[in-house]
């Protein structure tokens, strides 16, 4: 899970390593994920989202590719 300066640099990085290009995430979307995942993590009720919650979090910020499905076996 890495930062890249541009989408072109991600494509180059994937080609060099022969790994698939995955869905790209803007930093405002990443902030949305971080808040949903971690905003309460230091509190007693803090915990990892469960699969159904994960799907809702991803969908709410526009990440609906099967890549983000926590139980998918095809992507």
């Amino acid at each position: 899970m890495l930062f890249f300066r541009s989408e072109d640099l991600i494509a180059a990085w994937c080609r060099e390593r022969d790994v698939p290009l995955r869905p790209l995430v803007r930093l405002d979307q990443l902030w949305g994920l971080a808040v949903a995942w971690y905003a309460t993590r230091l509190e007693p009720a803090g915990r990892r989202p469960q699969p159904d919650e994960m799907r809702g979090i991803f969908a709410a910020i526009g990440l609906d590719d099967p890549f983000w499905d926590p139980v998918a076996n095809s992507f």
Partner: protein
Amino acid sequence: MAGADDFDLAVRLEIYRHFAATGARPAVEQIAARAGAGPAAVRESYRRLQGRRMLVLEADGASIRMAPPFSGVPTMHVVESARVSYFANCAWDAFGIAAALQRPSTVRSRCARSAEPLVLELGGSAPAESSWRFHCVVPAAHWWDDIVFT
């Protein structure tokens, strides 16, 4: 199991308090002293928390590699907040530390391809639009197959 669950909660909260206050992973003995238990009981709790994916332990079963979003070891993703420096496990967790602390933070990382530095001030709102992107190779269903690689 209520007793174990309550103890695990106390242990987890002490771990996170330590990370939040110092930026570093706690020793088992520090958590034991704060939780009012022995080191063996804390190590057992660590194992249960790892089973619930709340912690990732080193091979010694006592050193915390990850208490997401905090990293117990140095990484390329650093977050500075209130004069404390934190290591994050990954790009996502760098933002996650700022979200968890709920206070202004500076994320320092770099482009994985070009090594260009990324310095980003995070407050209570999303960062401004830019050409920077986040990319993850491993599909969500397999993140925990090897969470350190992910």
